[in-house]
């Protein structure tokens, strides 16, 4: 199997799909309006219409500070221009000057505004006030459903090996639906050093409950705690992690360990990072998997990547990791690599689309005698995912309906995923197409 060729072809396909969706995305790349030059502002600094248009131009171009200066100038001339004060407050919010934004929003709270502007004042005032707390929390809850054509990853091969003997595989691909849910709770505490140093704890949980294919049911949770410390443009994040995975009501594996991530901001458009992590994996025997402790051992991952933001609305990241698992039974020890590319595009009114592709190359150390006493397993695993999401306020807004903020801020997402595994052992060749929808609500407090 030519891994490199297959990987390259899949990367190209995902990239092409991503760009095709991008080109069709509405409201992202409009033709540039006639540019207002800075020299015009120097000539007419008190021209209200010109300076307001210049502020919008600068904001759209990503030059927020220039936009803020223009709005500030308008407010010095017209201090009762409440609409412009709202725009100024929100630009300060984007610049993360939360105290500045709060001051403007508190002023606006007592002013006569339209209902839409009043709702924005209330929403962002809550955000800036919680954002200034030394101890801040974010909670995110999601519920949805999925459909998959092979959720249990049944082998796609007609024959497999058992004890080295080729035998028919009576595999059943069963299309099934599932209820899905996830929660996330993150807490951050500012250390007050003036450099952004903070401590954090991040907890996430996923539930997948199939209607029929119970062996694909899972419940997983993870906790990660650590701190981020800034040294100029570099940040260091040491952390400890714990993860537990329950498979079809059986406790399957827990892992605990830690790692260190180092990130350097080269410029606002380019960030590079390196990371190393080690976790001890503790497997249990289950009704579906009696192997149990033979898989126990350390899993080390080390690698890095880059994040590129060619525009405010566009983020591309690529990462590569080396994997090394040392299990009690070397049939389950492996070496390998994981490569990931992600592309995220933000569109107007909170819409977004994401494309992600991950490839794993896994080479085991010893044969698994239960399958074959002579063939050492080699796998290539591949996952591609596309997703599109938008706030409900935007979705209903397309039909002219206004939702209360508590409902309108709920995010709707639809996604599709392809997961495949190729192996030199036919037993382990499989793939699965799935689609999912979810509703997600985020709360900051």
């Amino acid at each position, binding site marked *: 199997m030519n891994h490199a060729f297959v990987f390259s072809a899949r990367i190209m396909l995902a990239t092409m799909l991503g760009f095709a969706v991008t080109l069709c995305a509405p409201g992202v790349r409009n033709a540039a309006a006639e540019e207002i030059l800075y020299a015009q502002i120097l000539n*007419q600094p008190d021209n209200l219409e010109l300076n307001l248009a210049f502020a919008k131009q600068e904001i759209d171009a990503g030059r927020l500070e220039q936009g803020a200066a223009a709005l500030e100038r308008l407010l010095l001339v017209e201090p009762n221009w409440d609409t412009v004060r709202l725009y100024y407050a929100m630009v300060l919010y984007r*610049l993360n000057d939360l105290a500045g934004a709060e001051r403007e929003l508190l002023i606006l709270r007592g002013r006569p505004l339209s209902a839409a502007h009043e709702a924005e004042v209330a929403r962002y005032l809550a955000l800036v006030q919680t954002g200034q707390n030394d101890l801040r929390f974010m909670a995110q809850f999601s519920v949805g459903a999925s459909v998959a054509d092979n959720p249990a990853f049944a082998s796609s091969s007609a024959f497999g090996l058992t004890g080295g003997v080729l035998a028919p*595989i009576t595999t059943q691909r069963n299309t099934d639906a599932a209820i899905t849910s996830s929660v996330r709770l993150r807490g951050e505490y500012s250390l*007050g050093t*003036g450099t952004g140093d903070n401590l954090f704890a991040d907890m996430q949980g996923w539930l997948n409950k199939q209607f029929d294919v119970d062996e694909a049911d899972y419940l*997983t949770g993870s906790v990660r705690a650590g701190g981020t410390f800034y040294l*100029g443009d570099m940040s260091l994040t040491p952390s400890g992690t714990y993860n537990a995975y329950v498979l079809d009501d059986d406790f399957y594996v827990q892992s605990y360990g830690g790692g260190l991530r180092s990130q350097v901001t080269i410029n606002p458009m380019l960030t590079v990072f390196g990371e190393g992590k080690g976790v001890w994996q503790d497997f249990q025997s289950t*009704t579906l998997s009696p192997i149990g402790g033979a898989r126990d051992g350390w899993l080390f991952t080390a690698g890095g990547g880059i994040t590129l933001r060619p525009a*405010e609305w566009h983020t591309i990241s690529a990462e590569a990791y080396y994997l090394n698992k040392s299990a009690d039974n070397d049939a389950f020890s492996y070496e390998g690599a994981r490569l990931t590319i992600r592309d995220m595009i933000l569109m107007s009114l909170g819409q*977004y689309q994401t494309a992600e592709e991950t490839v794993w190359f896994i080479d085991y150390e010893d044969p698994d005698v239960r399958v074959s006493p002579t063939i050492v397993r080699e796998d290539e695993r591949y996952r591609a995912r596309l997703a599109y999401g938008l706030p409900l306020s935007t979705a209903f807004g397309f039909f002219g309906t206004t939702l209360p903020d508590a409902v309108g801020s709920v995010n709707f997402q639809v996604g599709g995923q392809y997961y495949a595994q190729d192996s030199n052992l036919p037993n382990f060749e499989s793939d699965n197409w799935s689609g999912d929808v979810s509703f997600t609500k985020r709360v900051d407090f």
Partner: protein
Amino acid sequence: MLISRKDITMPKQKPDANSVLKPLALALCLSVSGFALSTGNAQAAAQVGTSAAVRGDVFVRGGTAGEQHRAAVSDSIHLDDQIVTRQESALQILLLDRSVFTVGENCNLVIDRFIYDPDTGAGEMAAQVAQGVFRFMSGQIGGNNPTAVSIETPSAMLGTRGTFIEAIVGEDAAALADQMGLAYTSTCGTSQAGFYILRGPGLNTNSLESTGVVDVTSTGGSATISEANYAVFVPCPGAEPIGPFPVPDNVLEFLNFFLRSAPNGPSTNPVNVNTPGGEFSGQSLFNGVLLDPPPAPPQGQFDPNTPMMYYPPIFSS
């Protein structure tokens, strides 16, 4: 060689930036070099910026002749002009490189070095603030080379990167420090104290602006602020900077009062704009809630470890 703004003819069509800025930049280079070479009256009054907004009593004392005039909107600001504001007054200056100085009441400011090439954005800028309240937002010069911008106050030298900062220089700074109960030792009275605050962009900015950093350096030491709304206090020349610490509310209120406007009458909308704030500011771009993809299956989850699942019973272990 003197070049005044009057000598630059604005074309009837929309002006090209370079046709305006380039000759001015060249004039600045010539005037500065002229100043470096001569000690007499050969210093040229080259323009460094424009008065963009004026409130109250603001005066500009310019050139070697020291003539003073009341500032008005669209007035040119020149190299070495001394800008003085009185009670309840404020001025916003737009510099040629897109830097912005906003000064509040009782402020005394001089821009004493300004070299700028509009084609490359390179240059140097230095300013002195003897007293008062001010905000500075860096432009092209600082964006291209943070070390090329410096602001000197009696107690400290400020170096900035991609940032907007605010400062209080003079007795008010000492009074605010006393009000917040800050412990410090002053050997120079209160007139040279300074409060220096980084306003942004903060670490969590969702823009492509560089996150702000300000270095506060005195002969007694230095301190760096890289988190928005943190402050450093320097009580005296030669004193060690105290901080950074979160900017206290009394300092914020002081800055807001003197550097920002507040409504003083009924709501107005001179240009009749009603775009939602999220749309105008671009914040709505970031209002989606991205959901992480489902976790990848752990090792062995889908391996046929129990052969009877997949094979006829005669092959089960």
